[in-house]
């Protein structure tokens, strides 16, 4: 009887070599360091003492923390969906969930709910995502295969994107176009520790 090489060396995830792990971890650490050291005011922390403290703790640190958390969340949800749908192209955007979340967040802002209490915006986003999931499951049916689910997801994400554009166009907000780009693409500019506390626990 011959032992396979993999049985002699148990790994965390079969198929991913130790070398890949090391490279990925090193890249992550480099990214974190660069994000903390480099900013709009150049390399390092220029300016006087108070400016340095503010820039590091209130601008660069939340930005880095959010980037790590959001990246981890996207990667995990992508991997989970790929496993469930057995399709390497699957990701939350494809299934219409991110589109639904963006629509929920934009509606929360335009209907004025976001000004009522601080967590209204994330709740709006999560509600939108939940509604999108329900709609996708309803469209796909109870015994849907992976392909049907993906098709339903594409339909929901297209409609959500169109509705988001419509809501922003009809709003009195003069910055509607810029706002639309923000919700479609995302941005880590001007994030603060408040956003880290808001986003961290759900993630």
């Amino acid at each position, binding site marked *: 009887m011959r032992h396979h090489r993999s049985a002699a060396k148990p790994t965390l995830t079969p198929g991913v070599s130790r070398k890949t792990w090391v490279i990925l971890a090193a890249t992550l650490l480099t990214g974190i360091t660069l994000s903390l050291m480099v900013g*709009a005011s150049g390399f390092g922390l220029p300016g006087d003492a*108070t400016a340095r403290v503010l820039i590091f*703790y209130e*601008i660069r640190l939340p930005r880095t923390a959010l980037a790590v958390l959001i990246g981890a969340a996207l990667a995990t949800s992508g991997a989970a969906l790929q496993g469930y749908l057995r399709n390497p192209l699957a990701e939350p955007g494809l299934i219409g969930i991110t589109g639904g979340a963006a629509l929920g967040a934009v509606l929360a802002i335009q209907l004025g709910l976001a000004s009522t209490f601080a967590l209204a915006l994330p709740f709006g986003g999560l509600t939108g995502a939940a509604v999108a999931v329900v709609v996708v499951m309803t469209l796909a049916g109870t015994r849907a295969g992976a392909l049907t689910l993906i098709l339903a997801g594409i339909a929901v994400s297209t409609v959500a994107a169109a509705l988001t554009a419509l809501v922003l166009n009809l709003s009195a907000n003069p910055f509607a176009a810029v706002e639309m780009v923000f919700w479609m693409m995302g941005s880590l500019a001007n994030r603060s520790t408040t956003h880290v506390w808001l986003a961290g626990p759900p993630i």
Partner: protein
Amino acid sequence: MRLSIRRARARCVAMLGLAVPLTTLCAVAQAASPAPPPTRIVSINLCADQILLELVDAERIAAVSHLAADPTVSAVANQARGLTLTRGDGEDVLRYGPDLVLASAFTPRARVDHLRRLGMKVILVPHARDIEGIRSAIRVVADAVQARARGDHLIARFDATLARARKIATRSGRAAAGSKPRAILYSVNALAAGSYGLTHTAMTIAGLTNAAPSLGRGPGGRLPLERLLQANPDVILLSHAVDAYGAIAVAANLRHPAFRWLMRTRPTFVLRQAVTLCGTPKLADAIAALADKVARRRAGQSEQPAPPLQPLQWAR
């Protein structure tokens, strides 16, 4: 044949003979009674609206643009209440049967040509980039609506208010020690006022130095929050109330704790974008008010530096 030519020639000469006195009569008649002042004026541009509303009574205005009633961008929103608002497209303007339409160089050329083809008289009001531009814009509108006297009076009052603002700024500059306070106007979407435009002029006349041009802003005139903190301005200017736009994402830079700290530890004044978007006579009043506030602040200023900060300890 020869007879008909002679007769034709005779007829031509006769007609010519009549034509000259007739045209002279017409010209004289026109000079004697000039075109009546327009009584159904439609303005489809915000800047033209604001000057028009100061020069002409509401009875002569058929419609103004829909932006004139929006107080965040219009300094004459109160005066525009009760007037018909239009979005400015051809059908809409035709409905009011105007005898004069005021537009601007920024109105799409296709729309202007369309209106002219429909037979309307369209005057393009020049966009004002500096104080002289405001005066010429007022003159253009005053000529178009035949309110020359009122236009001259408006310009005179505008100049007088500006002179008063300059005097306040010079006096406070002489009284207080040190150079002019460095100011940055920070707005939604991280836009900071640059060295062109009326905001810069307003800040300079009111006795402030605009610190933004020397900072090297990014594309579109955006100033990242880090650079704003690094620049450490003495005065912060806002172009609207901080929460005027609610919770929209692009106003995140104004909600950021670091910016709020800046606002708390430095004198913060509001220079409404409603007076700087368009060059209007109301700008002079705004500059005078700002100069007054800056002078008062400089006079009553104590030389205490802001206390040093520990991380994560400042009150939110």
